[in-house]
């Protein structure tokens, strides 16, 4: 893969509700920040990818709403539907193809204007599954039960993810839910879908994120603090829940292995210092850590309970507070990438991971993580 870099990042604060902002307002805020961060203007942007979802936005062709704010006029533009990591992937391909030197990628959603259960229920087969009332939350509860049963992961260990991430969020000014809680608080919170308690689940959120990708040549010209793309891959598992072993994530295993191979990483657990993973639910962080080979052959829950994966650990997981501390879907994965960029630049302030040189960002599409996208980023070219 030719050398490419992320040369600008920008995001809104993640909020439970942004009643003052339209989609375009959020996009404008994120885009302006990304351009300012990169020290460039719209004239330096060769093409644009917006990322959105018509169901979450309640609009057909939802990308139409943010075109102006993303500066698409007189430029080539395309629109990815799904998580922001997938939008960024297409943006990267447009640079690697040689067609463009820079790509602006945006991703947005407003959970506050949406009904998550109906929207995610619509991802299930209309004939066989939808009428059962399944949605992202209830499906995740099934997955949690299977994962915990198969691996022996305890509710306390899963709750520790929430404790760690909400505490990490106290240092992140963009986070929605900074909280100082303990395991008892999580387990005492309302059961949403057994075994998931309210504090095991990520919140409903509004937000937008934008990044600027650039070729090596353009990075040399305009990149002030580039973070380099070392590897990226994505794979989709089967669709029907009954066709999958929900306790495992083979698509993530394959995506991570492919991304590591591109990045020349043979031992991810020791070579990666920071990982921002898709912790829509506490147990999923543990599951994804294991699938991505970030804890060797050990159980992630055991390691977490022994004090691993904190900001000061040799592998920090979700030092930003993760999605448990703010989860604007679609933008979520792009925010993971943005947080890793912050870490690799050494600009993460009070949640800075020491000596972060290689970082991993992770996004998902579909129910229970059917499709996974893994990015490996590095501070050195």
């Amino acid at each position, binding site marked *: *893969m*030719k050398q490419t870099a992320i040369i600008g990042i920008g995001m809104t604060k993640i909020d439970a509700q942004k009643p003052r902002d339209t989609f*375009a307002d959020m996009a404008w805020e994120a885009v302006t920040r990304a351009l300012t961060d990169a020290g460039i203007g719209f004239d330096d942007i060769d093409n644009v990818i917006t990322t959105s*979802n*018509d*169901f979450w936005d*309640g*609009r*057909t*062709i939802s*990308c*139409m*709403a943010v*075109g*102006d704010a993303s500066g*698409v*006029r*007189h*430029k*080539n*533009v*395309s*629109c*990815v*539907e*799904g998580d922001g990591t*997938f939008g960024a*992937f*297409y943006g*990267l*391909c*447009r*640079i*690697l*193809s*040689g*067609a463009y030197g820079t790509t602006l990628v945006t991703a947005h959603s407003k959970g506050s204007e949406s009904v998550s259960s109906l*929207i*995610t229920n*619509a*991802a299930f*087969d*209309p*004939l066989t599954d939808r009428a059962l009332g399944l949605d992202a939350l209830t499906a995740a509860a099934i997955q949690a039960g299977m994962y915990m049963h198969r691996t022996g992961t305890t509710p306390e260990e899963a709750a520790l993810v929430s404790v760690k991430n909400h505490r990490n969020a106290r240092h992140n000014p963009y986070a929605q839910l900074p909280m100082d809680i303990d395991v008892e608080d999580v387990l005492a919170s309302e059961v949403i879908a057994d075994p998931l308690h309210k504090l095991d689940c990520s919140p409903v959120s509004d937000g937008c994120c934008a990044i600027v990708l650039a070729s090596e040549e353009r990075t040399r010209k305009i990149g002030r603090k580039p973070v380099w793309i070392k590897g990226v*891959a*994505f*794979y*989709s*598992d*089967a*669709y*029907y829940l009954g066709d999958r072993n929900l306790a495992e994530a*083979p*698509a993530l295993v*394959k995506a991570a292995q492919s991304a590591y191979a591109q990045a020349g990483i043979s031992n991810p657990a020791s070579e990666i210092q920071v990982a921002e993973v898709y912790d829509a639910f506490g147990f999923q962080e543990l599951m994804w850590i294991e699938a991505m080979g970030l804890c060797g052959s050990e159980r992630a829950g055991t390691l977490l309970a022994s004090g691993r994966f904190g900001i000061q650990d040799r592998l920090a997981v979700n030092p930003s507070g993760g999605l448990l501390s703010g989860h604007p879907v679609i933008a979520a994965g792009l925010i993971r990438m943005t947080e890793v960029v912050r870490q690799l630049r050494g600009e993460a302030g009070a949640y800075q991971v020491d000596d972060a040189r290689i970082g991993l960002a992770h996004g998902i*599409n*579909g*129910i229970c993580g*059917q*499709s996974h996208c893994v990015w490996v980023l590095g501070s050195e070219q």
Partner: protein
Amino acid sequence: MGKRRVAIVGTGQTLHRSHRPDVNGQELIHEAVRLALADAGLTIADIDAIVIGNMDHFEGINAVDCWSVDGTGGTMKPVIKLTTGGTTGSTLAIGGVHLVASGMFDRVLIVGWEKNSESDTTGAITTAFDPVWDRLVFAGAISGLAAEAQAYMARYGATDRDAARVAVRDRRHACNNPHAQLHKPITIEDVLASPMLADPIHLLDVCPRTDGACAVIMACEGVAERLAPVPDWIWATANRHTYTYLGDVNWGELDSMSEAAQELFAKADIREPRKQIDVIELYQPYSFAGIIWIEDMGLVERGKGAEYIWSGATDMGGELPINPSGGVIACNPIGATGLIRCAEAALQIMGKAEARQVPDAKVAVSTGFGGCMWTDMLLHGRNKPDF
């Protein structure tokens, strides 16, 4: 280092009908995928990645990239979804070009599909518009087209009879295309006597609603030549998506087409498009566009579109045949429609267009229209592009 060249090596189109109750969405997709794989002499194991798209609200299925894997064969493969409204199909094609050209994948399967019979098309399209400013006064597909047609007619004196000539052309061409939905030729009088939907657009001026899917396989240089005797090389792509609000549009001209065409032709050094291009598959959802947009594309001067159409130049056998397939007026499974234009252009270049073949087609243009007043364009050639 030079750019990586990309070619289309196989295409597949389903049986397109107003209603396909014999298949569900995944089966419809599978029908197109199977045909495209067979056309390229490949199996699903040879496919490195899949690009898919449709209009979410038409079938009411969220996360179609995930839902569709049993139809596309995408299980344990990279699958990505692009969607831009009417342009979705051409957006997918452009996406396929970039994915292969990036060097990340050698063989990419591109799938556009729609089961319009399961949707309230206008109801869904209405939600594309800003809920506060545009939705209550303007929303829907045909209102924007009627506004464009009226503005053009006011400016240049064109008539609905001129437009009907375009509809007659496309419906006649469609009779040569087994994949078209509508196979009955029509007359100008038929068009003018058909019900008025939105002045000046008659029923026979516009596209039908179709169930259908299209699949296209693209491969990189080195692989493409082995898969297809005559690959369809993609010389360039360009697009513009400019509309956010109703007031953004220069009604009567399609600015997105003007800008995209200028960029596309500049990239491939096309200076005299009428002489250098052999055939065009124009995403033309209604007849007036067949007059207006060829002006925006730079084929003829402003106001001269109707004259050019009446001359027969765009008919089969004319100077520059447009829509040998019968185009969108004869078949419109929306998420597939733009990709069908691309596939039909590929068939022309590959010499596989059978009864609708333009003799010795060496350079073709395919376009997509949608979003609102958006344009995608691809330039196809029999020779490898010289970048």
